[in-house]
């Protein structure tokens, strides 16, 4: 960000004709700042909206998500049911809020787990090298060779349907990605001279790792985290769409889409709203991730 302001200010200085007043130049600069930061602002806003919806959902929802209202089947949005009802007379808004909670739980849970395991593996492997590193990397290669969704499908068929199972399956898929990113950053950092200097002075492996290597190699991993969360949410939705996701009655946004498909020509809201909610959340994570990438790694050299 710092760099961007600097650059655009320079360009401005080159392009602004001499004699323009300082006040209008300032205004133009702040407008530039806003525009350049638009992505960050939009991302954070959407993200907050999504997370808030999930967190306050149970308090705010107009009806319990799995209660049937047989007299209100397939109602259009409005009145007691702001987003309409489904074919069993369940309130769509409440089900969407519930689904957002599931997406958040799976998204954060799976990536947190895979971040911890993956970053640890990458850190240790990159730092110590040798046979341990080779073995870990081969295992990661094997996992990465499978298209993520296929692996997820196979894992889900084995595991079962709780939120924890879905999070586990997705975590397994992401461990290799975090491992690789962390490892390549660690390799780059370890090549720097100051690490050798620290070791030469007598610092233990643990101290070197935690105090020096880790903080300097973590930025690429951080960038990946936000994007990985959005991916995880999409994978969970895709699995639910295929019928392999979370146990009902807890609805998942993907499952809501599958339910709505049969009715989409006559009751399109059943398909539009769940997808919209999903897109808002994923978009938020992607925007935040993208602006993080801009700040920490503008030239895309890492990750």
């Amino acid at each position, binding site marked *: 960000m710092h760099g961007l302001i600097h650059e655009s200010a320079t360009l401005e200085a080159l392009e602004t004709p001499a004699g323009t007043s300082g006040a209008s130049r300032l205004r133009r600069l702040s407008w530039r700042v806003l525009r350049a930061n638009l992505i960050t602002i939009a991302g954070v806003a959407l993200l907050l909206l999504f997370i808030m919806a999930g967190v306050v959902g149970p308090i705010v929802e107009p009806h319990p998500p799995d209660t049937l209202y047989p007299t209100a089947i397939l109602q259009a949005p409005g009145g007691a049911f702001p987003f309409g009802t489904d074919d069993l007379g369940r309130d769509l808004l409440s089900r969407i809020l519930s689904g957002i909670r599931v997406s958040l739980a799976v998204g954060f849970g799976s990536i947190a787990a895979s971040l911890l395991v993956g970053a640890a593996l990458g850190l240790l492997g990159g730092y110590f090298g040798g046979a341990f590193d080779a073995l870990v990397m081969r295992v990661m290669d094997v996992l990465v*060779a499978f298209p993520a969704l296929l692996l997820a*499908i196979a894992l889900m068929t084995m595991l079962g349907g709780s939120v924890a199972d879905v999070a586990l399956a997705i975590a397994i898929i992401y461990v290799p990605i975090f491992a690789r990113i962390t490892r390549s950053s660690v390799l780059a950092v370890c090549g720097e001279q100051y690490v050798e200097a620290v070791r030469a002075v007598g610092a233990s492996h643990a101290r070197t790792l935690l105090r020096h290597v880790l903080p300097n190699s973590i930025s690429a991993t951080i960038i990946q985290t936000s994007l990985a969360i959005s991916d995880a949410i999409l994978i969970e939705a895709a699995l639910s769409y295929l019928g392999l996701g979370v146990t009902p009655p807890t609805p998942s946004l993907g499952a809501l889409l599958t339910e709505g498909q049969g009715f989409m020509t006559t009751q399109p809201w059943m398909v539009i709203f769940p997808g919209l909610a999903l897109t808002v959340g994923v978009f938020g994570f992607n925007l935040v991730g993208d602006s993080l990438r801009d700040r920490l790694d503008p030239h*895309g050299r890492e990750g």
Partner: protein
Amino acid sequence: MRTYIISRLLLAVPTLFGVSVVAFLTIHLIPGNIVEVMLGTRTDVTPQQVAELNRLYGIDTPLWRQYLLWAGNILHADLGFSLRTGLPVVTLLGSALGVTAELTVLAVLIALLVAVPAGVWTAVRRNGPGDVAARLLGLLGLSIPAFWLGTLLILAVSIYLPWLSSFSFVPFLQSPARNLETMILPACTLGLGLASIILRLTRSAMLEVLHKDYLRTARAKGLRGSRVLAKHALRNALLPVITIVGLQIGYLLGGAVIIENVFTLPGVGRLVVQAIEQRDYPLVQSVVFVVAALVIVVNLLVDLCYAWVDPRIRYS
């Protein structure tokens, strides 16, 4: 260079072995076997009949023996036969791969056609309103779930272009026109996510290149702006773009699974999902192995390209 190639090839061997074990184990660890799925919950069979069927389908031997049998055949390039249909896996995979390949190629073409010019344009107008808008749109493209977009497109088409929705899949060789009609929507849906990635990549690659000195020299020498752009900037920017497309093959194949499901296309994604459902062991194992091997091979080729271009990598 040669040592690099050899070392990478050698590294691929244990990876492929690991892939084969995972491909084999994942399908066998899922509860339920092919005989159970075949018989369902309505056939009146005795335990002896079940034993006979287990023998017929080769699932009565220990797992390690089944693995060795299958792996041995793979080494002889024999992918086996589908237990469910009796057809050779290679035939089923061939036609499915053709569909998925066509889908991915069309998606890539659409993505390139849209994203490369857009990437160039946004790089040139850096931080202008168009740039920010394009980046936002690009990220939005990555965020829209493929199955939602696909479903919405099907809905829109059925309302506004009803004649388009009546086509079910026709192989390309049978009728190219009908085939493209069925493939256009799924290709656009799949291409959207890819377009976003290519947009960002083109943009950053172009930005790097635009500031290079040799461009200023070329301009100073009097060459016209757009020619400079096309000749030097674009060509250098395209290399990472093309390599990224190769690396995205994993994403594309995964995305294809969902798209094929939404649009009921007979591609590899649907083939594998159905085969898993039916516990068609040879089909799942061989197809998953081949797909993973393809991903490894493509990644290897991409790495070799990088190494050829950037000598520093070779000696690391």
